[in-house]
């Protein structure tokens, strides 16, 4: 099954973090699904440049991305799906993309966000999305890199 991991990280491709995940997952293709990034030429360029050598990077908006990820999930090539928000993850799930786990690696603080755990904050909508995902059978866990101990969303959602 192609979909090795779906991850939420609002910094997208940064430092060694993505390289570590790609290696752990045996994937060489990153599929980013994010409306803002897809429609911002400068941001796209910068993100594409930040990818590790030998990695294919695709950037789609939600409409095209949902279909693309559904297609790729059914193929053998291992892929890594990268999002900026759990709300996008919920939309993907609602569009029929199935994944048993959502890895949340980082969401920055913001005016309407509350800190949940370490570098992960969430707005009311984002919290709601994570709860809905869990109700749909997708486990939500916080983990920055593969070696970290995962922390379940359920344990911090009090």
């Amino acid at each position, binding site marked *: 099954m192609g979909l090795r991991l779906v991850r939420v990280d*609002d*910094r*997208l*491709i*940064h*430092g060694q973090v993505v390289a570590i995940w790609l290696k752990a997952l045996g994937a060489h293709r990153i599929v980013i699904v994010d409306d803002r990034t897809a429609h911002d030429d*400068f*941001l796209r*360029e*910068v*993100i594409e*440049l*930040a990818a*590790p050598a030998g990695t294919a990077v695709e950037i789609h908006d939600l409409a095209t991305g949902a279909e693309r990820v559904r297609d790729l999930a059914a193929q053998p090539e291992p892929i890594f799906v990268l999002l900026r928000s759990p709300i996008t993850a919920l939309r993907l799930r609602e569009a029929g993309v199935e994944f048993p786990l959502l890895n949340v690696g980082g*969401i*920055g*603080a*913001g005016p309407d966000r509350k*800190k949940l755990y*370490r*570098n992960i*904050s969430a707005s009311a909508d984002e919290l709601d999305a994570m709860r809905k995902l869990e109700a749909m059978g997708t486990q939500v866990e916080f983990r920055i890199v593969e070696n970290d101990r995962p922390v379940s969303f359920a344990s911090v959602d009090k």
Partner: protein
Amino acid sequence: MRPFDVLIASHGSVAASLVEAAGMICGDASLQGVSAVGLEPDDSPESYLERLRARVDGSRPTLILTDLYGGTPHNVACTLARRDGGEVRCISGANLAIVIEAITTTDPLDDALVERLIQTTREAVVDATDRLATQH
């Protein structure tokens, strides 16, 4: 007088420490038009971009030195450079040698200077053990 501003963009306190150390070596006057913006764990790319943008004076060219190619401070600095146009140049892999060279130069911020600064950074990386051994 240096005809451009220098902005150091890094993870955490690396930028502030580089500026502090450069000030110790070159004197506080050299820190005129030099600022440090460190990425905090709570920062989103958006919040960091705003903090960087606040330090860019559009009426002067700006040289942004980032700590790590591909890291968030670097990616965000590049987005700023691309988007805001003007005269913003970006060099990754900042070390103390390049900071000192950049803040003490009186040359304009152009291709020749960027090339020279990169040379300085590279020449600062030496296998000291080997050099000591071959000298004796």
